[in-house]
């Protein structure tokens, strides 16, 4: 089985050990037929499947986080390449910079055209550094903004793939006003007259994720996470211990299902068992299907309706009480 070649995560260790045993047994089997061994092998294989199902059926927040951050997880380019092998990449913010952490292009998915935009993490070490680990600079957000306007002009839908730890806390980013870059994106996205779909494919990190995340539909892959601050940040600020990451993952309710239950995400897109990194083709195919379904639904709305739909979606979000009790009671 090809999926056993994937680097196992910490919580996947029991599964990996079982896989090792099976492999060793299979090697022995190759040397000669032995009915005793065959029985053992069947039993182990059954056990493996059972363990796999129960393991992935009961994931904690921090396990989803580990899967969302898996080094072999498919990134934006992997999806674009599979959806449209001939997709045309577009570069630059037209103001002096092209941010490699923000990828954009013209994509035709089964004949349906849209502008694809997404954060890119990078695979090799050099690549990761080049992409700043998926953390765009303000220029990256402005590149996305330029293409939102492009899409608006030509009536093309926008699909944003989000997999970023967040905005980059750096000197350059602050000097070039990343807060403004994000804020303007939020405002302009809410005013677009074309369908916008945002997909959290991995990590949805705070403002950096939201900067391309204001959409008519928010989809989340099964093991993706979306949070207001990184769980490490939350742990170090609130609990004063950076090692309380598991607790803050649970407290913040950041997994796809929890985010859907809070009314923020519209749909959770299933991944191959064990995570999208086990089968890129399946992950891209499945996400493509769901995207087309939503794009078809949205294409029935008129431009003003699309804008209103998006505005109303975010206008509703929030939980508060009307209280007449005296303050501090």
């Amino acid at each position, binding site marked *: 089985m090809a999926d056993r070649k994937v680097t196992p995560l910490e919580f996947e260790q029991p599964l990996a050990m079982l896989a090792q045993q099976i492999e060793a047994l299979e090697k022995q089997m190759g040397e000669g037929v032995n009915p005793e061994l065959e029985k053992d092998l069947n039993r182990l294989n059954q056990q493996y499947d059972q363990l796999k199902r129960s393991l992935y059926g009961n994931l904690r927040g921090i396990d989803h986080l580990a899967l969302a951050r898996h080094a072999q997880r498919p990134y934006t380019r992997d999806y674009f390449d599979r959806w449209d092998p001939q997709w045309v990449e577009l570069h630059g913010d037209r103001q002096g910079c092209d941010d490699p952490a923000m990828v954009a292009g013209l994509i035709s998915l089964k004949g349906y055209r849209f502008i694809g935009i997404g954060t890119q993490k990078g695979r090799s070490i050099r690549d990761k550094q080049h992409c700043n680990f998926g953390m765009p600079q303000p220029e990256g957000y402005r590149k996305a903004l330029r293409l939102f306007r492009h899409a608006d002009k030509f009536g093309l839908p926008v699909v944003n793939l989000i997999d970023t730890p967040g*905005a980059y806390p750096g000197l350059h*980013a602050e000097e070039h*006003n990343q807060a403004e870059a994000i804020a303007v994106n939020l405002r*302009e996205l809410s005013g677009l007259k074309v369908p916008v779909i945002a997909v959290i494919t991995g990590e949805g990190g705070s*403002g950096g994720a*939201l900067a391309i995340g204001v959409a008519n539909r928010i989809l989340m892959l099964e093991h993706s996470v979306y949070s*207001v601050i990184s769980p490490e940040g939350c742990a170090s600020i609130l609990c004063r211990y950076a090692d309380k990451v598991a607790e803050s993952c649970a407290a913040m*309710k950041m997994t796809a299902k929890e985010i859907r239950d809070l009314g923020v995400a519209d749909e959770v897109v299933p991944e191959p068992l064990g995570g999208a990194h086990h089968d890129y083709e399946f992950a891209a195919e499945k996400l493509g299907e769901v995207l087309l379904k939503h794009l078809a639904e949205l294409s029935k709305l008129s431009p003003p309706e699309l804008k209103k739909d998006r505005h109303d979606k975010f206008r509703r979000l929030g*939980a*508060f009480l009307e209280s007449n009790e005296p303050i501090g009671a």
Partner: protein
Amino acid sequence: MDLKEWFANRKKKQESVEVKQPLSTEEYCALWTQCHLCRELLYTRDLRQNLHVCPKCQYHFRIGAEQRIEQLADPDSFVELDANLASADPLGFVDSEPYAKRLKDASRKSGLRESVVTGTITLNQTPIAVGVMDFGHFGGSMGSVVGEKVARLIEEAQKRRVPLIIISSSGGARMQEGILSLMQLAKTSAALQAFHEEGLLYISILTEPTYGGVTASFAMLGDIIIAEPGARVGFAGRRVIEQTIRQKLPADFQTAEYLLSHGQVDMVVERARLRETLSQIIEFHKGNNPTPLSPSNGKKGEAIYSR
């Protein structure tokens, strides 16, 4: 008394000496305030008369929402909006303390229900919608209530077609409400988009300190952005950046003056001149009165000047 005893007594005396707290006892602080910057001891009543600005070094103290409104509005013109909105605990969030308890403690300390106060005022007789954040309540953090109140304020301003002023002071989004806090960035920005399309004026005032989600939404979306002298404004905090890039940052990094020199704000205005500056800007944006100047290209002039 032998020598041993004498030493023991002396030691006991030394240990039991009461250490007087130099500045923190309450009655002392009520009368006197020490300037955070130049360490000058200031008589609190004088300080208040000087709009909470140190007369010696011009340090602008953080002030609460109530005082801000008092300094800005025509006397007795403030009418509060949505005063009854209160935070829920949508996640049932517990860290070292439950969120519900933290909320109560914050209210007891600040005397406010939430970290923003919204309403309408008149400023030199011009009606204005105004929102003021108070850092003293929960670090001015933005949760669902702040987002909702700000969005409602923007909609109210739009309905009445009056200028909007928001004075920001915040540590950012409120972690205890998780993703719903983050969504308030989108909610307030979307409300501003509609306001923006109506061609109405929004002035954003940045005060010490404004960070995170508030900076990355309505605070940076002003048609005109004003910062108070010395106010620290940014997205990521200084300490986080220093830890990330592992180098010292310039001393004036993220101060109002630094922002001005990096093109991020229109002006830095001291508190004493804020009211008159706002009044002037708002008056200017009422546009040209068609009577004294007749438009050069004739006929359709009214349409041009009507705003």
